[in-house]
């Protein structure tokens, strides 16, 4: 009889005293842990799963499923949704690169809009030639140029972190469009460069005719092109994330000192992360130029970089699925809130500003209440639920 009394009397005291420091500690540690929750290490083998053990095979399988899914999605939706999905692909490609940089390697970049501009202008320049070379090569050229610029920025950025890096890349985002204006006879100044979207090849016509019988329009061709680029990018990034390189990036992010002691050259790995991420941004810029048919400074403002940041923060830093979901928000939210604004009596220009307003509010709210983002939060809930179930099961087994 005295024992239960004893415990009931003693338990509230430590709980009460612990509340202060532990709640303070929670704000300090939870975000870091939560951010990591969005990109956990690969699950240990031996769990029950129907997927192949090899990462490469598993990813190839997922790639195949996604390709078929994307094709069905593109064929059952109307042309307007097709063009929206085409926009989704370039946002998602850039956000995928950014989430690897920020989520896995802990470097923030506000310069990805500028890197996209590099890719877009390269593609526009190559396409403006009288006899343009093959489209894949042009997109590749966009990737290479953005990679080179990204490597230059990355070398400078590798020594910076947090606010310094944010400030430096912000300066890049604000400064780079000036180059397009300064060399206006090459880049077209404020008006920018019109992009002649290349015609879809014959193969595409017969392919669409064979699959669904829909008409193979230019819009559809661009949506397919973007989807192919997106799938390739995410396939490569997903493999990279699960590889030795991805693990090293995580080590650099989480424990600088330990990583350095383990023989990891911090600077070189940071530059590599920036280069990979810049390559994705370059490809995204190239696809953007084709879809929008214009490469102009006004298309690559700081708001573009901040929208990408919103996408990856909301989806969950470091998660490719999160980046894709966040990008979907960037495409499908603006028409929705603009309509909502019009219903509330705002005029067009005012209603157009509602989307960036929502991005900003989402960034603030997500960082304060759910820094793990959507994917990370769901995954944490699921893991907690499973752990509880397991403890309950083991308790039932041992307790009888």
């Amino acid at each position, binding site marked *: 009889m005295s024992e239960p009394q004893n415990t009931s009397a003693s338990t509230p005291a430590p709980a009460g005293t612990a509340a202060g420091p532990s709640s303070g500690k929670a*704000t*300090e540690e939870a*975000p*870091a842990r939560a*951010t990591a929750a969005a990109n956990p290490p690969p699950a240990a083998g031996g769990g029950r799963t129907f997927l192949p053990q090899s990462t490469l095979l598993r990813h190839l399988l997922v790639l195949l499923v996604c390709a078929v899914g994307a094709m069905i999605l593109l064929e059952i939706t109307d042309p307007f949704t097709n063009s929206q999905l085409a926009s989704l692909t370039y946002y998602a490609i850039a956000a995928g690169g950014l989430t690897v940089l*920020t989520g896995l390697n*802990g470097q*923030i970049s*506000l310069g990805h809009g500028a890197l996209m501009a590099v890719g877009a202008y390269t593609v526009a320049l190559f396409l403006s030639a009288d006899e343009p070379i093959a489209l894949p090569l042009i997109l590749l050229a966009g990737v290479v140029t953005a990679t080179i610029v990204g490597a230059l920025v990355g070398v*400078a950025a590798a*020594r*910076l*972190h*947090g*606010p*310094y890096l*944010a*400030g*430096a890349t*912000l*300066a*890049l985002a*604000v*400064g*780079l*469009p*000036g*180059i397009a*204006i*300064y060399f206006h006879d090459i880049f077209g100044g404020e008006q920018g460069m019109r992009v002649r979207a290349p015609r879809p090849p014959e193969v595409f016509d017969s392919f669409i005719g064979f699959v669904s019988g829909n008409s193979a329009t230019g819009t559809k061709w661009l949506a397919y092109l973007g989807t192919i680029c997106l799938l390739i990018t995410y396939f490569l990034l997903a493999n990279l994330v699960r590889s030795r390189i991805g693990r090293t990036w995580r080590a650099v992010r989480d424990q600088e000192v330990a990583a350095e002691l383990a023989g990891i050259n911090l600077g070189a790995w940071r530059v590599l992360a920036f280069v990979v991420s810049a390559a994705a941004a370059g490809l995204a810029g190239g696809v953007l130029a084709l879809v929008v048919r214009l490469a102009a400074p006004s298309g690559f*403002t*700081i*708001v573009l970089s*901040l929208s990408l*940041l*919103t996408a990856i*923060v909301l989806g969950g830093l470091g998660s490719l699925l999160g980046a894709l979901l966040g990008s979907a928000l960037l495409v499908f939210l603006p028409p929705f809130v603009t309509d909502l604004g019009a219903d509330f009596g*705002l005029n067009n*220009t*005012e209603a157009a*500003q*509602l*989307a*960036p*307003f929502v*991005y*900003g*509010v*989402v*960034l*603030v709210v997500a*960082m*304060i209440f759910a*820094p793990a983002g959507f994917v990370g939060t769901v995954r944490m809930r699921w893991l907690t639920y499973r752990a509880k179930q397991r403890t309950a099961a083991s308790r039932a087994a041992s307790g009888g």
Partner: protein
Amino acid sequence: MQQFLNVTLTGLTQGMIYAAFALALVLIWRSTRIVNFAQGSMAAATAFIALALIQAGWSYWVALVVALASGFLLGAVIERVIIRPVEGGPELNAVIVTLGLFVAIQALIAIVFGSSFQSFPTPFGVRGFTVGDTTIPVTPTSLYVIGSVLITMGLLVALFRFTRVGLAMRASAFGQEVARLLGVKVGRMLTLGWGLAAVVGSLSGLLIAGGGFVFPAYMDSLIVFGFVAAVLGGLDSPIGAVVGGLILGLALNYVSGYVPRGSALVNITALAILIVVLLVRPGGLFSSATARRA
């Protein structure tokens, strides 16, 4: 020679504005270790409040006082409500929160005040004084800009040096735990610090707008210039921020004054200066210690 004098004086005037903005960033950095990327949008918001008052028929000076007061209120409320939860957490989270504020406030300005270009008045003329036959490039407006920034800086120095509140603010910036043990209400000091910084930022926003045009994104380059100036001075030193602002003002004006069509290159010059400083002297121009801060 005439052009050189012209460019230099314009550079110094603009440098004073950059210095004020950099000072606002440094004040917040010292107390909370956060670079407030929303500073520009906050300043722009107060400038639009002032403009609305002026358009409603009030005098410039009333509008100025109201704008500065609303800047103080805005800064204090933002610190208390939005920044407090992420203070002391991972540095990336605080950066992202201020960036979110940056874009949200800018969009809100466009929704409330419209996104068109509007001219912003200045209380003094923009014609240079004449001495004999020659017009010297010192205008009443530039004197007003330099004077008001100098007065603000003097008041800040007096506050930090000679008052109890200033001492408490310095203490809580120096060591939060120790200050708290000694009975300083650290939270209140941080709120006050953000409010004061927002006032200085708001002043620089009003000064750069004077005689020109304002639109929701007009402070975008000033954030970059202020940040570069602050980093030039080491991000930790108010004096450094002022010197950094003046150096940057001069450098940017020489580029736009002497390079053909150089005004397009101003922003990229600021980037180049920033990169060089961060690579060569990450602790700022005046750092004596070799400790790597960046």
